[in-house]
């Protein structure tokens, strides 16, 4: 089967975000970057599906040229091909990103080589738009479900599971389909040394479709106001136990 997986380069989770002076971007000089966590799992899932069912995998991203780092990382894990839609570093909104990916997928599918499955992360760690995969699926006329934590391929369909507050729900999507996954679907592997060496020399295809910005224009970033917090220290070590249990009684928990 042919599997495509779309990723986004984001600052490493937990990093301290410093805003540039004009507030329109983040100061990248002190940051390390990674693949958005849900998408790390999407990459792992693409590799596992191809290991199990045969075929090939392709990783795509829309981002600044430095995003090649995330594409090569995916290839070091076992993804076969990589495609970059280069930007000038400014953030594209969800409509523009979806349009660029859709045009690129159509280009890659010319000649009838359709992707059986196109994987996304549920939402990017930074922008959290929750919509790029759905827009792409809609334009391509393919079924899409988000929030997925398990994928099985059987009888030309993807049987997928989504966690709910009270258990889980199952969908059966006829292929070709689009699925947005969540962290927890798998535990991503680490690259091997031969994988790293291979990915360094691998070719990265560039796709530069003509897209227009959508209707959500980012103006600037703001740091949220720091909430003044007054921590009440209940004590040190085991001697604090009575004060803690007092609190449980006060809150009606015991």
């Amino acid at each position: 089967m042919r599997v495509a997986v779309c990723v986004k380069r984001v600052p490493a989770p937990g990093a301290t975000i410093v805003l540039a002076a004009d507030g329109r971007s983040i100061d990248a000089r002190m940051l390390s970057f990674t693949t958005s966590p849900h998408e790390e799992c999407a990459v792992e899932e693409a590799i596992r599906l191809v290991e199990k069912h045969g075929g090939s995998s392709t990783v795509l991203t829309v981002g600044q040229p430095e995003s090649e780092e995330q594409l090569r990382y995916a290839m070091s894990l076992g993804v076969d091909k990589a495609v970059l839609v280069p930007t000038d570093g400014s953030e594209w909104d969800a409509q523009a990103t979806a349009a660029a990916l859709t045009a690129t997928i159509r280009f890659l599918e010319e000649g009838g080589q359709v992707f059986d499955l196109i994987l996304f992360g549920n939402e990017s760690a930074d922008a959290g738009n929750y919509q790029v995969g759905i827009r792409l699926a809609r334009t391509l006329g393919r079924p899409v479900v988000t929030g997925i934590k398990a994928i099985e391929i059987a009888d030309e369909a993807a049987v997928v599971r989504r966690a709910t507050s009270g258990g889980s729900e199952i969908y059966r999507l006829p292929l070709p389909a689009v699925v947005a996954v969540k962290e927890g679907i798998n535990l991503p592997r680490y690259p091997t040394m031969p994988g790293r060496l291979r990915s360094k020399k691998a070719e990265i295809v560039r796709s530069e479709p003509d897209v227009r910005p959508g209707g959500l224009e980012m103006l600037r970033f703001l740091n949220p106001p720091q909430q003044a917090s007054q921590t009440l220290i209940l004590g040190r070590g085991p001697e604090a136990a009575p004060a803690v249990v007092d609190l449980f009684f006060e809150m009606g928990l015991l």
Partner: protein
Amino acid sequence: MILVYLETAAGTPSDLSLQSLTLARSLGDELTTTTFGPGGDWVIDHQMFSEYAPEARGEALAQLTRSLTPAVVVGPGTDTGNEVMAHLAAILDVALATNVTEVDVATWELTRLRWGGSLWERARLTGSPRLLTVAPHVLPASDHLVGEVSRFVPELDDLLVRTRVVERVEQTGGITLGTARVIVSGGRGVGSADGFSMLEELAARLGGAVGCSRVVTNNGWRPHSDQVGQTGTRVAPDLYLALGISGAIQHWVGMMAAKKILAINTDPEAPMVTKADYAVIGDLHQVLPAILAEIEARTRT
């Protein structure tokens, strides 16, 4: 007109939907609500909706939107709310601003949350209609008053069953992270999978659930379904106990909606300790047994 899409359970709008109603009220226009099944002013009625079907919901909302021509459609910023609103946006080919906390209706400049809320974004939203979802646990819930109820029957292609739930597996028993009043959560400081048995004991005594940080699931000590944080479950319990959790931002944004936070940590400078309501400075492996013993002593009658 502003159309508000409410998610319901047994005819009652969810709390997060009522929070989105609060933001919709701030937009200063005539308001009408819609629901799948009873609950709203416009009840969308079709046999497709005996089960959750995101693509069909988006299509039905698009038809209702074309019929009512609202200036704005507002939905809850839940996973399913964002999903259905994204379908609506894709069908209408207009922008969707997710996780919005505030709108200036004069300029349509809005504030939305990035990084789960650790960074804010000011953005300008255009579109006809304008679509947005409301960030969870930021605004209070509004009372929901149902006006005159109308029924809306969409025309849906049978093809849309392709993305409808085919089977539902209910979790048996147990208190879930999403509904627990108390969450006893452990981080790197717990040290091992076995270390969580004490947390389970405390959770059982308090009638709560066990949670954990991302380090813990990455180490394989707990299943991912226990993970609290930006990429796990977002929780809002009455009390959140953070045991050996330093409080990295991606964890914090998943539990900052808790009413009270109690941190137990060896490091008095850990972000979780400085941001908590209550803290105990000490090793959880010594503090937790003392707490369990104290509970035992004071509840024995």
